[in-house]
């Protein structure tokens, strides 16, 4: 019985890994087709001269949010909001942002940039992310008690925070994202 159980588990793990690979292939394909694997497109976004990245992200959030909240309402999926704190998300976010602008790729798009043949991503960029991540792991025991939990608010979503039905928040956020995208087109950015 025990052996059978561990066999089913390892088969399940294998399927899970294959699904991860399949989702990654589609994700990478889409990122490349959108131009998000390119340094020039990402830096153009941060210099506010090329809005491609924001258009991709906002339309992904709009589509994803409506579908996932619909499936949640139907009881098909659950949510996995990350826990957070001001110390974690503000400081970490700003450090990440600086790195984003200096490197010109983010962790997902650098994988795409490597597939696209970009050697600055494969050499300095990849080495840097690995070093930076390792550095954090080394400092984690010292950072954790001092700053990472400052202003902790747990794993909460906006509808939970406001204590309202999901759709009271999803609907206006969807409308706002749509209007923002419409406005970006209107001023032809």
């Amino acid at each position, binding site marked *: 019985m025990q052996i059978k159980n561990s066999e089913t588990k390892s088969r399940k793990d294998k399927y899970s890994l294959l699904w991860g690979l399949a989702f990654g292939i589609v994700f*990478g394909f889409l990122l490349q087709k959108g131009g998000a694997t390119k340094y020039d497109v990402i830096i153009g976004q941060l210099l506010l001269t090329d809005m491609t990245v924001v258009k991709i992200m906002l339309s992904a959030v709009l589509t994803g949010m409506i579908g996932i909240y619909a499936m949640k309402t139907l009881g098909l999926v659950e949510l996995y909001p990350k826990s957070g704190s001001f110390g974690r998300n*503000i400081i970490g976010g700003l450090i990440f942002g600086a790195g984003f602008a200096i490197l010109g790729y983010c962790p997902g798009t650098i994988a*795409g940039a490597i597939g696209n043949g970009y050697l600055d991503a494969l050499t300095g960029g990849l080495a840097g992310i690995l*070093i930076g991540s390792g550095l954090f792991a080394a400092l984690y025991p010292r950072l954790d008690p001092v700053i990472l939990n400052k202003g902790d608010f747990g794993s909460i979503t906006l509808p939970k925070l406001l204590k309202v039905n999901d759709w009271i928040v999803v609907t206006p956020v969807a409308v706002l994202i749509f209007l923002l995208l419409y406005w970006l087109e209107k001023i032809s950015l």
Partner: protein
Amino acid sequence: MEFLTQVRWSPYAVGIGIGILSWLSFLISRKPIACSTTFARASGMIEKLFRGKKVDLKPYYHKEKLVVDWQWMLVMGIVIGSLISALLSGDFHWKLVPSIWENAFGSAPLLRVIAALFGGICLGFGARWANGCTSGHGISGTLQLAISSWISAACFFIGGILTAHLIFRLIG
């Protein structure tokens, strides 16, 4: 099937595609699409090659186990998917110095590699500090309306826009 060989798609087609992909990953794998933890795991795995099993004992790797998991495979998949897309459209090029960088700082490869290394260190460090990146917080977290992700995504772009302007408007 002509669309498969096109170099660029509308950003909206790409975004809607990623949104639908996120439905499937929630439904089938019960996980949101995310990337950056994989780099922490890979970093720990490389360290383990040199320093052995004691690396597993580091508190951070106790939290994020040093194994090849779903997200690890997802990141590998991104490399493959991007390569397929680029090859199909003839958009695959070996290139070291991107155009915007070259216009501002010249075509010297070493300078660009050093900048990429330094940027990568900040990016990797910041992603772990913020507990997520442009995919995990920026797309998957914001679409769940997670507070941590909206704050992080805003700070990614505030930090990114300020730094990019500093680099290209003041220095470059």
